[in-house]
């Protein structure tokens, strides 16, 4: 009796496994020949980077932040939920943007200036290294570190790994805190991590990033590091720059003119 009941259970288990596996093994139907292509106007680059010249920033100006957050449907949380805020680009004091390199006597043109901080789209990003599903990944073609919101499980390991605090999590449904939405870009849902995407959707249709376009003083410059004639390479040839926490080996691609 014992033996035959065990055998029955073994057989039932194997059958269930087989039935469950059948649809997985069946091949999915594919449409006939498809090809994918870029917009003719798309900006092409293999190593996107940004240079920030805060000496050109005006006090109390939030144009770059407003443009980015409105263009990407980044919610604005009420003050009592400040700890759950979402920000893709924002201002910091010099001491907070560069805590490892305190400059005792800041030059006048940098004193009190707001330093824009955002995702650095590192060459060697720790966030990509730790993601268990490759929901955050570095695109080979252009070097942008992107989020796949469809795949993110919301484990927030990437947030722990980022040495720059660039990442935000949707602690609530963001649509509750969006006064108006830009229909050209999706919102996100609660439970996924998000961050600056170097405006990959803008680059794809031939536009510079929203923050760069919004700045009236051209404090933000965007371009391809692999193109020796790009705007960023021009500045880097002429001005000294620093990057955030370079000793960590992350290879950040946002440069700050000093």
């Amino acid at each position, binding site marked *: 009796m014992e033996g035959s009941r065990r055998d029955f259970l073994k057989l039932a288990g194997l059958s269930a496994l087989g039935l469950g596996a059948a649809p997985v093994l069946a091949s999915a*139907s594919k449409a006939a020949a498809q090809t*994918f292509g870029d*917009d003719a106007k798309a900006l092409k680059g293999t190593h996107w980077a940004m240079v920030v010249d805060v000496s050109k920033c005006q006090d109390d100006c939030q144009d770059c932040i407003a443009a980015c957050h409105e263009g990407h449907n980044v919610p604005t949380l009420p003050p009592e939920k400040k700890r759950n805020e979402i920000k893709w680009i924002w201002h910091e004091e010099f001491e907070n943007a560069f805590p490892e390199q305190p400059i005792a006597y800041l030059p006048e043109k940098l004193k009190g200036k707001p330093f824009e901080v955002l995702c650095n789209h590192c060459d060697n990003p720790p966030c990509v290294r730790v993601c268990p599903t490759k929901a955050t990944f570095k695109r080979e*073609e252009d070097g942008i570190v992107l989020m*796949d*919101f469809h795949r993110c499980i919301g484990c927030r390991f990437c947030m722990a790994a980022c040495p720059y605090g660039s990442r935000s999590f949707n602690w609530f449904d963001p649509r509750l805190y969006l006064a108006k939405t830009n229909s050209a870009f*999706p*919102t996100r*849902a609660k439970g996924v991590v998000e961050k600056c995407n170097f405006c990959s959707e803008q680059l794809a249709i031939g536009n510079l990033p929203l923050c760069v376009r919004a700045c009236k003083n051209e404090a933000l410059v965007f371009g391809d590091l692999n193109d020796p004639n790009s705007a960023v390479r021009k500045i880097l040839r002429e001005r000294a720059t620093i990057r955030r926490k370079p000793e960590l080996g992350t290879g950040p691609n946002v440069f700050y003119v000093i």
Partner: protein
Amino acid sequence: MRMVPYDKEKIGAGLLIFFVIFTLPFWYNRGRAVAPANPVLPTDYKTCVESTDYMKTSHMQLLNTWRTEVVRYGPRYYTNSQGQRYKMSLTDTCLDCHPKKADFCDRCHNYAAVFPYCWDCHLTEKGTR
């Protein structure tokens, strides 16, 4: 096979209650017919990105392919088997011809009790800026 003594009444009652609950969907809805799904088709356009039959069975596979291409690789345009070029976007392309989600998408989805979460993120109204 040796029979183990068991409480016939309790087992029988339990089995009966189980069958009643298990077959609930069948006898609870007896006599009622659910109207077949009738999505409102666009009048201005006759063809979709792919053939109607393909879209009926595999629109989700197509959307998944679009999603992988746009999000992970970068290309934004799709050329179908007929050589027609479309922008790979749920809100901009699909909703261009099928602007009202409630009249189109929801009709079949509600009938089939399918609730995709696309709309948690992808906007259903165009031009709200």
